[in-house]
Every structure is written in C-alpha cells, then in structure tokens.
C-alpha cells in the first residue's frame, strides 16, 4: 500500500493486513475542537466556576538578589482580594518543577516562594482576587525591597572561580552547586583521545544554540477546587497528570486519596507542560480560601517564566580514517539550565544518548557535559529534549568532515550509520541521567529515507552547483537523525478496558493527549485487536481518579509505551470474550490461553496462540475450528446477566526494555541573499520512519509541526536579553514564530516498516523531526556559500557577518 498527495507520501508495503491501523480515521475529539467546544482549562473554569478567584503572580524585576522586606498589607486590604501568598505564609518544601519519573532526576532547588531571587521573572508573591483586575491592582500594592547581587548572565562564566552562586543553599540532587553545576555527565567507551590522535583525519568544532520557547497556543492554565467530598481537584493544562499529583501531594502534604488531577483538552505542550508551574499555587489557594482558584499565564509570562529550551555550547571532535570510516566521537555539552535545574541532567544526557549511537561505527566514544545554573530564564523539557542541540553540532560537523574528505555527505553518513541488527555501547552506557539499556536495532528505513529524500530535493543535480540568480545563491543540505520511543524500563503506561452489552467497549488510559491525537491512535489500536471499527470504542484519558497510571506525554513515549498497554488490555478483554464464546459454542478452550499475560512483541511473525482457536470479526467471535460464530454482544449479555456472571474487563500495563528509535533524513534547499544575509528555505523534505504509521494523517501532522517549529528555531526564534538579564522580546510580535506564509513547501515522506517490539509494529514520532532544520539548513547555507555558521538562529545579521568575514 502506498499513498501520495502533494506534500505527503506514505509507503506501507509488506505490512501485516490491518483494518483500522494505518487508516486516517478522524480524531476522536475532532468535531469538538473545530466547533470551539469549552474543553480547555480556562473554558471549564469560566463555565463551571464563574465566581472563582483569579490568581496573578508578582515577578522579580531583578536577576539575582534577596528580598529584604515585603509588605502585603495594603494589597490584602484591597476590595476583592482574598489571599496574598509569599514565602512567609506558604510551605517551604524543596522540590523540582520537572514532571518526571521517580526517583526524580532533577535537583530539588525550587520552593513555592523564597526570599532568594534568581532570575527576572522569578516568583515573589501571588494574589488571588475576585477579578483579574483586582488581582493585578493588588500586585502593584505589594511593597518589596530587594538587595540586588551580581548575576551570572553567561553560561561560560558560571563555573569560573568567584562567579556568583545561584543556589548557595546546595540543593539536594544538584551536582556541584558551589560551582553552579546543576548536573554533570561523563560517559566514555574506549579511549577517545588516543583514537582521535591515531585517526588519519580529525575535525573539531563548536556549535551554539539559543534560548527558545515552545509557544503553545494555550498558555499554562490551572484551576483548583474542593469537590463535594472534600477532595482537592486540579484541572490543569499538563502533560503529566500523575507527576502533578505526586509533586503537589508532597509540596502541600495532601494525601493522594484527597487529590485528583484532571487533564482536559490541552492547547499544545511541546514539553513546556511537563512541568509543575501553577498547580501548587492554585491548590494551596483553594485550600486556604475554600474557593475555586485559577491562574492563566499571560503570553509574556509564558516567555519569561515558564520554560525554555536549554541553550547549549557543544564542542565536538570526530576522527576518521582517510576513507571516512569513523574511529572516534567526542562531544562536550555546556548546557545552560537557567535559574533552576529542571530537566538539567536528563536533557543533557539525551544530547549524547540520542545522537552518538546513530554513528555506531566509531568504537571510541565519549560524551560529557555540565549543566550550569545562571540567572536567566529556566530551561526545561522541549520537543527534541537535548537531541536537537546535539544534532545541530553533530550533523554540521559531519558535513564539514565530508568536505574535508571530499566526500558526498550522504555517502559519509551511510558508511557510518547504525543498521538493523546492530547496537551501540552508548545505549547501555548512557540513559536518562543514569545507566541506559542495551538496544539492538530491529527496524530501520534509513537507506530508503536517504535515497527518497535525496531524489525529492534534487541532491545530485543541485549539490555543489551554487546556482546564482543575481545576488541570490542556492544550495542544498541534509542531516540524519534518530530519537527513541519512550525511556526503556522507566516509562510505564497502563490501560483499562471493558465490554458493554451492545458489543462496544470503554477504554480508560493514563496516556495524556495534549493535541497529538493519542486518544485517537490508542482507540485505533484497541479496535484493531478487537476487530471492530474505531467508533465502537469510547476512550477516557488522563484523570488520576478514573483512569490507570501513565507517566505522561513526553519522551516520545505515548504511541509505543501507552500503545503497548492498550494492545495488552484489548487482548486480555478479547481473550475473556473468547472464553465465554467457547462456552456458548460448547467448545474447549485452554484457560491458560485466556489468562496468560498478553504480549506486545512479535505480533507479525508470532501471532497469539489463542488466535488458532478463535478470531474477532466485525463484532463476532468466529471459531476457527468449527466455523461457528456468536456475537460479542451476546457474549456480554450472557456474562453480565445470564450464566457465570462476571465483568469482562482488564487493566494492563506496559514497560519495555526496548526503545526502538524512529529515524529521519532531512533535506533543505536554501537561497542565500548576498546583499542582506537573508536565508530563504525554498524546499524542505522530511523523510521519516516511525514503524507502522497508526494514523498517517496524524503522523504527517506530527512531522509538519515539528519541522515548522524547527525551521523557526533555525531561522528566527531567539530570546534577547538586556544587560541585566531581562528578556527584551517577550511577545509574539517580537519573538517570531513561522506564520502560514513563512512556511516553505515541505514534502513529508513516511516509509513504514514493522517494528517487532512495538504495539502493532509502531514506533513513536513526536520529537525527532524538530532536530533536522538547524543542521540541514546550515549545511545548505554551506553548500551555497562555503560559509559555516556555528550558531543558531541563522539570522540575516549572523549570515551577513559570516559572509563578510570570509570575503575578508
């Protein structure tokens, strides 16, 4: 099967037959979203709690220092104000805002409020009032005096002797706060320095990436209220409802049985919402006032005080023989985590662990790095999660090595890339902030991706030609990538499924749909196993009271990890249906086949043994032996009302030792204007392998969204700071994301294959495609001009300066 429309081609040849998987069914929430239904947090707050309190946060105007006095009396007396929170009347628990697994890998360097100020935008106080206006007015009435201290505003200065210390209190989990080091990694396989010294050819470069923001269209919003039973209920725009519950429970000392977190529809996350930013405040305010409390961040706050991508400065050295066979790879990352160490260790780990195994032919490899505190905005999780920064450095340096070796960059990559049946010692040596898990590649379309991508961009015809029209010159560039599918042996998802009397099903998943469409693809997976159309299954997701556990939407985990749980739950329910059907048909069925734990792996070549006896067919159970059938609805009626009554239902969870990487090859054609330095992307190709595409329309959307965000990151998106550390462009007017007319034509090429460890052959796809634009566009600029840019974004000023520098 293959499919081709303008801008999208999808090849899915040689896959097992499927009736729902592989089709672009409509999103389960599609019609609700396009009719503007009140489904986001603030809609629910406005609809259900018109008399709620509105919270506003007073934020620090200075980058570093201490609060010497704070007087909230006038603010508290203002009409309509119910509560003012500061460090003087809130719990002092140390915690991390990073919503990650347990034990938490980020340092406990955060408190609800403290007298220390660590960046412009840091929390100073919060006001809850009957109107937004009253809350804002009250902020102005809080009298604060600050003792300003020298600030660290450049990551390169952070570890220098005598540098101001951002966290002198030595937070638990920080690597060396006496030198501003939040996290440190050093992993080596072999002796990389000796291998570099012995290499015929070596290349060493440095690449710097910038501060950037996720810009979800819905800013962070949280609502908390106490329900009829006295339970604290938090409705919040989050990617991690269970981590929200765990962390808020600990900060506020509320039992998990008295704390419920509901994730409604979410207006985009991209990592920004893998963070506990407001939930502690609204819950504490609701506890103190007894009233529903809401905070909705402004766009400016989203920029200055939510989370950003870790800016990194990466030094990389590659050694190869004269023919281009890699011998040594050495990467050092200096990561700027800003004022708090959220995701500092794990993002930096991924900079190495998601990039270096792609070139597994190098036997001597070292990845090391420091994530340092500065008095700048706080970094966190961001789609790509460190790999984006790593690939910016790795893929541009490989391009320069190809030039040095006079080789085609594609050929150089092909010689050195990981292949089916191969592993890399890095997989085992480096996980997410701790030791990893050995992996062997079981599926890869990389050779096809390279060939199709090259053909589509016109690689042979255009590369090295420097086609010029007046003062504009064209070039092509490419890059190659892998990511992961969840964190092996750490990420766990679960799903509960039950049968209704009419033969439809209810599916409850912990997985967190933040707009990605995970509710839809999980429904498709269940429908595939149960032999029904997707509309026979109703899904509920992400409610800590009503659905089973899931780590949340991050690390490209949902399709693979949560999908695995859904496949298991659907199989268990199916097997229970088979057992009742066997009774009804008077046939034998070994109970072991019914009760044994369902598996996810190897469905393509080792189908479940129970399928030799019964199979599902459009709402019926068909006996393979007798050819007889009974309807699933009749099975349900019998089981619930008639004979041997019992609930047909199952809860299953999935955790995998595998994290099969999706792969991608990206190609860009650019036009560089000699006179202005402006870089225009004239064509872009993203060729992707995510295993079996469960829903091709949604796969395309994931790829396109990541590419659009990536091109913005490569060309325009950048924080600018004043000399005192304040962001000077915190608006969508001054921080430029790509608009409809800014987007170049993009061809998405998806080449499916069957990943044997994945649910129904799937791997994940969410993050990988944000990694391509910086290197692919940078390499195209190099092809067009011979100039290498070592810093993103490629703004006209930077390009112009680089062009002038080479023209002497």
């Amino acid at each position: 099967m293959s499919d081709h429309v303008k801008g999208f081609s999808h090849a899915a040849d040689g896959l097992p037959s499927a009736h729902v998987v592989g089709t672009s069914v409509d999103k389960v929430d599609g019609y609700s979203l396009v009719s503007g239904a009140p489904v986001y947090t603030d809609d629910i707050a406005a609809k259900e709690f018109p008399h709620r309190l509105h919270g506003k946060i007073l934020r620090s105007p200075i980058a570093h220092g201490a609060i010497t006095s704070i007087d909230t009396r006038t603010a508290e007396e203002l009409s309509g104000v119910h509560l003012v929170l500061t460090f003087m009347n809130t719990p002092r628990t140390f915690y991390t805002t990073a919503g990650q697994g347990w034990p938490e890998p980020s340092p406990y360097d955060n408190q609800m409020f403290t007298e220390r100020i660590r960046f412009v935008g840091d929390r100073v106080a919060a006001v809850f009032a009957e109107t937004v206006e009253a809350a804002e007015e009250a902020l102005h009435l809080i009298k604060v005096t600050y003792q300003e201290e020298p600030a660290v505003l450049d990551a390169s200065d952070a570890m220098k002797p005598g540098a101001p210390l951002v966290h002198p209190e030595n937070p638990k989990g920080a690597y060396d706060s006496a030198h501003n080091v939040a996290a440190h990694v050093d992993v080596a396989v072999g002796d990389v320095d000796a291998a570099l010294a012995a290499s015929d050819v070596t290349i060493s470069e440095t690449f710097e990436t910038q501060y950037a923001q996720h810009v979800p269209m819905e800013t962070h919003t949280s609502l908390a209220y106490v329900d009829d039973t006295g339970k604290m209920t938090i409705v919040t725009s989050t990617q991690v409802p269970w981590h929200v519950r765990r962390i808020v429970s600990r900060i506020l000392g509320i039992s998990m049985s008295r704390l419920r977190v509901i994730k409604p529809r979410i207006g985009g996350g991209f990592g920004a919402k893998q963070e506990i930013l407001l939930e502690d405040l609204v819950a504490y305010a609701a506890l103190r006032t007894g009233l529903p409390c809401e905070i909705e961040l402004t766009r400016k706050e989203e920029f200055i005080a939510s989370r950003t991508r870790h800016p990194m400065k990466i030094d990389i050295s590659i050694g190869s023989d004269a023919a281009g066979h890699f011998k040594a790879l050495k990467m050092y990352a200096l990561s700027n985590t800003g004022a708090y160490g959220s995701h500092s260790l794990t993002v930096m780990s991924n900079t190495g662990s998601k990039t270096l195994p792609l070139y597994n032919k190098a036997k001597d490899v070292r990845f090391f790095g420091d994530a340092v505190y500065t008095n700048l905005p706080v970094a966190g999780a961001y789609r790509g999660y460190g790999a984006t920064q790593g690939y910016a450095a790795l893929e541009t340096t490989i391009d320069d090595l190809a030039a040095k070796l006079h080789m085609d960059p594609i050929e150089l990559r092909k010689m050195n890339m990981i292949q089916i049946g191969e592993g890399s010692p890095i997989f085992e040596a480096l996980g997410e902030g701790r030791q990893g898990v050995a992996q062997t590649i079981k599926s890869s379309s990389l050779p096809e991706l390279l060939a199709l991508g090259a053909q589509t961009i016109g690689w042979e015809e255009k590369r090295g030609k420097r086609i010029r029209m007046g003062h504009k010159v064209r070039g092509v560039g490419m890059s190659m990538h892998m990511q992961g599918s969840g964190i092996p042996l750490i990420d766990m998802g679960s799903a509960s499924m039950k049968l209704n009397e009419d033969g439809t099903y209810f599916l409850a998943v912990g997985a967190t749909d933040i707009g990605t469409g995970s509710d839809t693809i999980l429904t498709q997976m269940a429908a595939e196993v149960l032999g029904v159309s997707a509309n026979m299954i109703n899904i509920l997701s992400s409610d800590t009271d009503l659905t089973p556990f899931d780590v949340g939407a991050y690390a490209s985990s949902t399709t693979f990890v949560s999908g695995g749980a859904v496949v298991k739950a659907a199989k268990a329910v199916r097997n229970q249906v088979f057992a009742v059907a066997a009774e009804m048909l008077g046939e034998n069925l070994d109970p072991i086949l019914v009760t044994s734990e369902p598996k996810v792996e190897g469905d393509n070549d080792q189908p479940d043994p129970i399928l030799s006896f019964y199979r599902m067919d459009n709402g019926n159970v068909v006996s393979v032996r007798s050819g007889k059938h009974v309807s699933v609805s009749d099975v349900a009626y019998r089981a619930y009302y008639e004979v041997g009554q019992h609930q047909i239902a199952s809860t299953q969870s999935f955790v995998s030792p595998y994290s099969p990487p999706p792969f991608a090859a990206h190609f860009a054609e650019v036009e560089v204007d000699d006179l202005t330095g402006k870089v225009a992307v004239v064509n872009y190709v993203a060729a992707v392998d995510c295993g079996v595409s469960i829903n091709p329309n949604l796969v395309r959307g994931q790829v396109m969204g990541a590419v659009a965000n990536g091109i913005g990151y490569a060309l325009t998106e950048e924080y600018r700071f004043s000399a005192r550390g304040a962001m000077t462009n915190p608006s969508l007017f001054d921080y430029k994301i790509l608009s409809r007319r800014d987007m170049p034509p993009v061809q998405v090429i998806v080449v499916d294959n069957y990943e044997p460890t994945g649910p129904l052959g799937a791997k994940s796809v969410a993050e990988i495609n944000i990694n391509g634009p910086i290197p692919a566009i940078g390499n195209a600029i190099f092809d067009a001009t011979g100039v290498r840019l070592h810093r993103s974004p490629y703004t006209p000023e930077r390009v112009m300066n680089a062009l002038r520098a080479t023209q002497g």
Partner: protein
Amino acid sequence: MRISMTINGTQCVMDVDPDDVLLDVLRGAGYLEVKGSCHAGDCGACTVLVDGRPVASCLTFAARVDGHSVTTVRGIGDGTHAHPLQRAFVENGAAQCGYCVPGAIVSAKALLDENPEPTEDEVRLAMDANYCRCTGYEQQVEAVLDAAEQLRKEARR
C-alpha cells in the same frame, strides 16, 4: 454602557465598560468558543467576524461593535450540522490541539465568502494572522481548499 449586537444571529444587549474588549465580553457571555492567547493581536486565536470581516477580538473594544453583527465559529454553520470548513478540518487532520482552530476557521470563512475559489497563496495570505504551533499549516491550508471545493459543489446544486 449598554450596547447591542447580533451574535451568531441572536440579538444581544449587554452592559460593558468602555475599555472592555470584545474577547472578554464574548467569553463573559458564555461564548467560550472564542479562545484567548496572546491578548495583543499577534496570534489570531481570538479571531471573530464583525459584519463578516475577521478581527482580533482581544484588540477590539466591545463598544465599537455596538449595532454590528458578530460571528464566532459556532455561528458559521446551520446550527445543527458541521460547516464544510469544520468537516474539512477534521478530515484533513488539520486540528491537533485545536486551540487556534476557531480563529483559523472564521478567517477562512471570511475568505471563502468573498472568494469562493481561492488559490493556495490566497488561503495562506488570508489566514496569515492565525498562528498555529502544531500543524505546520499544510493540512489546514488543504482543509480550506477542500472546503471551498465542497461549498462550490453545494452552491451548484
């Protein structure tokens, strides 16, 4: 001050302050399909039609709409069935998180009312002020072109 406007065909009288913006007034009156995002006219999420023309409701004083008609995304269909634009957005996978979609769809509606057979470039231009962070725009543009074709077919019937 007391103003009156027609919202999705229904006459409404409201008390507003002179500095109230249309976005807040509409949401306050329960039109929660109008989504706020940047509150500065930069992103297009809050777009509604005033007398058929797209405006950023976060920058429009409600008082200026006195005597005019406002259409939100809930007002573009017949009230019972999805409008072809809404259907095309769903079928093309053009709504991911969906937060930008109410604004994007009304911008497209204004375009198609004026120009039933737009080119791709005209679609991109007409909706350029509607940012989307999820889709990379391609499937949204295709959805509008598909809906235009569908509407032309319906008009010929």
